[in-house]
């Protein structure tokens, strides 16, 4: 028959694919077995804001931690992968990492409920950590680990701790803007002289965290006025920090409200002629809000010790040094030097704010919608 060979090829391919599927299924069952919490009773309310004492263990136990943990990481592999590899080598604990967007991984953990395979969650901002803590998904972190970081960079109820600091800055186009003429406060960008010159990223989590900070520190009315004022200046909207910085460098806009470290990645790739630089706010202006990338242990972890060891390791000097040199972020543990061209954390004097307050994201979204910043 004319179609015989074709049909045969098709069937062979189909059968091969089906068997590959089966093999993959078996292989994966072995993998996931190790992470299965096994005690999925569907009851997330068991979790409470337990104080650290309940789960506190001596450091000796933690140093002997072994086995494997699953980490849901909102930080990209590019930024955190190498230090996780070092952790595996140094401790013998196997780490399985799922990379994704910070809020989407948080939503995933909420959907998984008590069946979540995750032991540790790493977030790019404090807001998502706070939301998971509110849903009682997080376990308490022992006090000796928390103590490595200043109280302003960790949760009041011990459910999460910051790993590295990220400052809000204004990126400016070096050809179009003289940094000496930039205002001393972010609040002054509402001046009509900035009409048509500003770029921002209202759908982006880091911007929304900043607005939450603005509401907390300066009050709801000031936040509303600021949003309306900037909007009156017809800012251009971008989907994220990266595209905002890119637009500043190309001259599409003259200034952009972004996080500080994106610039350094562009400088690394494009060289010194990249036409954008950072402007840092000083004197505790809210424009220089210091947010954190942070981490937490899941309430349903089946390897609490290894999870603790992981977080402890990330707050040791080697890892903190890595964050400062490779990801251009501010180390949160005192005594670790910043090696790139930014003011030291001490000189910046960032605004005093309890980052736990950044969890009221819903209020921020509502304000952004009421002021027409978000549709």
């Amino acid at each position: 028959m004319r179609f015989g060979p074709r049909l045969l090829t098709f069937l062979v391919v189909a059968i091969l694919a089906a068997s590959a599927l089966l093999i993959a299924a078996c292989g994966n069952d072995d993998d996931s077995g190790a992470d299965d919490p096994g005690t999925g009773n569907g009851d997330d309310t068991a979790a409470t804001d337990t104080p650290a004492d309940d789960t506190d263990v001596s450091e000796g136990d933690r140093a002997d931690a072994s086995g494997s943990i699953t980490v849901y990481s909102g930080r990209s592999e590019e930024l955190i992968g190498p230090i996780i590899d070092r952790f595996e080598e140094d401790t013998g604990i196997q780490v399985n990492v799922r990379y994704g967007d910070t809020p989407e991984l948080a939503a995933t953990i909420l959907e998984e409920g008590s069946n979540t395979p995750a032991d540790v969650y790493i977030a790019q901002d404090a807001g998502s950590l706070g939301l998971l803590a509110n849903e009682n998904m997080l376990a308490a972190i022992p006090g000796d680990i928390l103590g490595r970081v200043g109280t302003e960079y960790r949760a009041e109820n011990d459910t999460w701790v910051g790993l590295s600091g990220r400052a809000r800055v204004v990126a400016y186009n070096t050809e179009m803007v003289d940094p000496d003429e930039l205002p001393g406060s972010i609040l002054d960008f509402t001046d009509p002289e900035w009409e048509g010159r500003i770029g921002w990223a209202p759908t982006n989590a880091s911007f929304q965290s900043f607005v939450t900070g603005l509401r907390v520190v300066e009050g709801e009315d000031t936040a509303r006025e600021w949003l309306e004022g900037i909007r009156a200046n017809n800012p251009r909207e971008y989907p994220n920090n990266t595209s905002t910085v890119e637009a500043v460098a190309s001259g599409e806009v003259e200034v952009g409200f972004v996080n500080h470290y994106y610039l350094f990645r562009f400088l690394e790739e494009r060289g010194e002629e990249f036409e954008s630089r950072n402007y840092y706010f000083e004197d505790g202006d809210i424009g220089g809000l210091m947010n954190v990338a942070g981490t937490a242990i899941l309430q349903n972890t089946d390897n609490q010790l290894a999870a603790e060891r992981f977080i402890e390791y990330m707050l040791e000097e080697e890892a903190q040094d890595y964050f400062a040199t490779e990801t251009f972020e501010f180390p949160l543990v005192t005594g670790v030097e910043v090696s790139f061209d930014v003011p030291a954390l001490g000189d910046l004097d960032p605004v005093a704010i309890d980052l736990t307050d950044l969890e009221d994201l819903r209020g921020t979204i509502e304000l952004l919608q009421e002021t027409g910043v978000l549709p």
Partner: protein
Amino acid sequence: MAVLRGRPVQLNAPAIAVGLLAAAVAGAMLLPALYLLIRVFADLGASFDVMTGSRALTSLRDTVMLAAAAALGAVAIAVPAAWLTTRTDLPFARTWFVLLSLPLAIPSYIAAMTLVIFLGPRGMLQSWLEPLGVDRLPDIYGFWGAWLALTLFTFPYVLLPVRAALSSMDRSLEEASQSLGKSGIVTFVRVVLPQLRPAAAAGALLVALYTLSDFGAVSIMNFPSLSQQIYVQYRGTLDRDAAAALAILLVLVAVVVVVAEGFTRGRARYHPVSASRRPGRIRLGRWKWAALAYVGAIVSIALVLPLGVLAWYTSQGLAQGESLQAIREPGLNSAYVSLIAAIVTVLAALPVAYLAVRRPGIFSVVVERLSYSGYALPGIVIALTLVFFGANYAPFLYQTIPLLVFAYMVSFLPQALGATRASFLQINPKTEEAGRSLGKSPLHVFFRITLPQLLPGMTAAGGLVFLTVMKELPATLLLSPIGFDTLAIQAWDLSREGFFTRASFAASVLVIISAVPMLIMAIRERTPA
């Protein structure tokens, strides 16, 4: 059973089996809607407020307009392109067809980004025009930017089925028209176009639903579509109930669109009455240059431009000593999982398409139409649906390849369905009846007569699914086995942090691998005399 109501066909075992299979597939396709209902009913009052709020309704209107405009634009681009590459003596017609189908392989956020880099207010085009005193180009952001990006990168959804329909169309009708003294254009409008309607409508349906679900292009172009709002809810507040309420609106729109498409199909059946012959191609004559300019312009903007940007970044990276080695494993993973997903999805589409064409009735219509219900949903909704059902009801399958493939099937079955259905329509049932009258069993007839005639359509369907799975992100991120790295994941992971040079490696390889099924399809086509 409702399958056979009113049909003078006896109820036999194979018919029941096909009905059950189709029902099972349709059931799987309903999971996202079920998940959304669970979320919405968690707080019905609040959800209702979200759904009927002016913000949601405005966004709904804008989104529907964008989808309609993109579908029209895609048909307007694709139908002439398909005709030029099948029916005329356009030079290198087959090569043009392959090039024209490739924009589909480019992820929408990359497509939109390259449009901004090129056509943005201070983009490349502006820098070329600067000596002429052009300081700034008009804004590309907003409705028209999103429309341009979506049209340019989804029109192959229309091109592929229309071209398939053109190639397998019975030419005797056209010859009859021409023998009656009608001109080429009149013949095209009066004879060819009506026969293309089912294929074009099926393609336009995919474009419209894809537009409803797209997040990449609308976020880069800053167009406040419903799917962008859904992402804002998830990302900003983790408010899954409010996000679900908005997503339900998308399901409702999808239902309306799908039903409307059903009406445009009519009851048309186009199968050849005689054996198909291939007469000579239409001479373009002096129109050849215009035709070349037309396909050339589309290929330049939708393919050469994004590939050029990727190549530029890649060359920058290579110059800095980056190695391509790192994308070997992700490349293999992407290709392998996409191939499995394509095969599974096409096989799942088969019973549904069969039922819809050969056993028309309420049951088959409902089953087929239901299969489209999830296609308008943004990827994150499908991904979270399967996170929810997988983690809580099938933990042994959760975050394994089978569940990931299942997620792809739920996401992309409609792509396979359109092409498979269209090729079923072109099979003359008389050939099957002839087989049965010779005393062959229905299975025998299916495998020896029906399936071989379906293979071209199924290959096209599989190619579409393959391409789309290659670039799929949300489900891949959340549902793949841990450590299963793919090209789409790499391109995204690197580009979101601003490492464009390395992101472009992954993206380039992604596009190249996606081109493979297109090339195979084009090569296997017999060159007309």
